[in-house]
């Protein structure tokens, strides 16, 4: 733990954490966007209908 302490303690300013966090976020966000838009339409439709298919016989509709 002391080693880590020394290492981080020597960082000139803590500002670097703000920059790191921003980079991590932007990269993650872009990857997620790419993934989401690469999903096929039929898959999306199938997923989004999951709550409506609960295979229950005895539920009365109002």
């Amino acid at each position: 733990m002391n080693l880590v302490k020394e290492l981080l303690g020597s960082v000139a300013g803590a500002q670097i954490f703000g920059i790191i966090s921003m980079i991590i976020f932007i990269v993650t966000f872009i990857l997620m966007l790419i993934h989401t838009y690469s999903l096929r339409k039929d898959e999306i439709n199938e997923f989004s209908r999951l709550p409506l298919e609960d295979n229950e016989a005895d539920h009365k509709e109002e």
Partner: protein
Amino acid sequence: MEQEKFYYDNRIVKFFAYATLFWAVIGMAVGLLAALQFVFPSLSFDLAYTTFGRIRPIHTNAVIFAFVGNGMFTGIYYSLQRLCKARMFNDTLSYIHFWGWQLIIVFAALTYIFGFTTGKEYAELEWPIDIMVAAIWVVFGWNMFGTIIKRRTRHIYVAIWFYIATFVTVAVLHIVNSIAIPVHLLKSYPIYAGVQDALVQWWYGHNAVAFFLTTPYLGLMYYFMPKAANRPIYSYRLSIIHFWALIFLYIWAGPHHLLYAALPNWAQTLGVVFSIMLIAPSWGGMVNGLLTLRGAWDKVREDPVLKFFVVAVTAYGMSTLEGPLMSTKTVNAFTHFTDWTVSHAHIGALGWNGFLTFGMLYWMIPRLFNTQLYSRKLANTHFWVGTLGIIFYAVPLYWGAVVQTLMWKEFTEMGFLKYPNFLETVSQIIPMYATRAIGGALYITGAVIGVVNIWKTVKAGKFSKETEAMAPALAPLSSKRVSGESRHRWLERKPVQFLILSLVVILIGGLVEIIPMYLIRTNIPTITSVKPYTPLELEGRDIYVREGCYTCHSQMVRPFRSETERYGEYSKAGEYVYDHPFQWGSKRNGPDLFREGVKTGKNYKPDSWHYTHMMDPRKLNEQSIMPSYPWLISNNLNVSYTPKKIRVMQSLGVPYEDGYDKKAVADLQAQAVQIATGLKTSGISVDPDKEIIALIAYIQRLGTDISK
């Protein structure tokens, strides 16, 4: 494919639903009492158990963990089984979860009433109950994951992602924020002090809002909104983006609760930036919920369930826009410590959580009981009374907040504070507090109407303990399909890997924020004149924590002229290094107390003033709304744990000299005699071994270190 027959457990859903309604009424009633105390201070009844400082945590905890907590579990146990096409993994775990959670709530209420509290907002539970919470939470997670693993659907629907994120994040937050060293069974000191404690606490506090009040309810929205509207969610793609962006961003935003406080600037800025970014996913989610009703808006006119959902989702949108705006430094300088925060929180609690819960129950109960809702008219009445309640609650508080903050900041032409007496700014907004109480009363009236309606529905119907369902077992995937699929597709059917990834995502933000606070010494410049509390002051501080003084008084003078003029020198991070826990507070119903002890300061009052003020504040200020604390004058100070407290403090790094625990009680008594003798010269006769003496010692110590 061969169909398998299985049964959903409805009984556990019913149990949680009843608990939700029960605690809703209790939690709101306590809130109403607290609201009325602002207008009628005599409603504290001069009793320790009913003072604002003790019932406010009962109200907040009851609403968050008892009402919303049980509401969340009701919805999760209903929807998880149906989305997984599987019964809950293990019925015994379900009922351990249910009864364990109710037991925790009862313990929480009892300990708060009797003044056993850690003094950290929304995390006031003492350590044995914290351990119970962790254990029951694991039972819940175990049961949930068991169910997900034995599911009969391939894809894990987005609502369940929100449930998984809730489980994993709340576990991390609760454990990290609750680490403490016990003094005895119902008293402990957190391992963090001052600025670190504040940062950890608000990292927790903010994300308790995010991952206890928001993500599980978003999961419920993604299930029950399509159910009630009988159409799929507007955009499933948007829900995926909503999920990942939300859990990634939320975890960073905690420091926005500490703007202009003695927290390093980089941490404050981090909090602001991520709070602003949060608008995007939050509004994405809101739009996704509302657009689900496209082409079905005519149904909203007819169906009370949809009415509740529309207002709930709109309230979510409003509070998630308002929150980021309040996180900017300019707005925060204006709204922080005022009723704006309280109003903001209630838009979320009454609108988003409350209305989503009621809408869900109105939809679910008739189905579980195979009947129609007893009265649609009553449900509509509940809706309108509740909506009016929210408006009557929020608008006067916003108004009052603006009036009060402007009064705090107003200077005369000569450059003096126009309203130097804090009480004047409170008296000015008492009518707003009265109207707020009316709003609260309306909302609780609506809730009672809801309970009656649901009770009548239950009486009229016949409960299905189980619901039969059919689905084919999940077939192993062919290698052809697996090789062609995308990575997220893989992830979406692997709950454990999904959990780990969610954990990584939320840990990144938490670690970047918290680790540097520990490791970089320059973040908290030490001040050599800052010394540990004397034993008597330490005991006094524990009384301060016990009575929940932090619920009305901050200990954080922000670096504004309006504050330094009113309270004195602004607070420095180094002044809090021995504060286990920190007591910065988040709301000023009374003045800041951080420089209260500075003899040359703006607010200094002699010991005799504090004595009389604690006995009956209205003897000194007729308009005061502070409760009386007569028991502090009759109670003897318990010093049997003082040596242990010193040893615990030493173990946390507070530099008392070696072996000081043995001398502590003698020092304590000597200082107490000195204060009691001083009081005698002012004509007040009091034994030195009373609690009031310790509290006075603590108050007179506040903020004095740097002026020595």
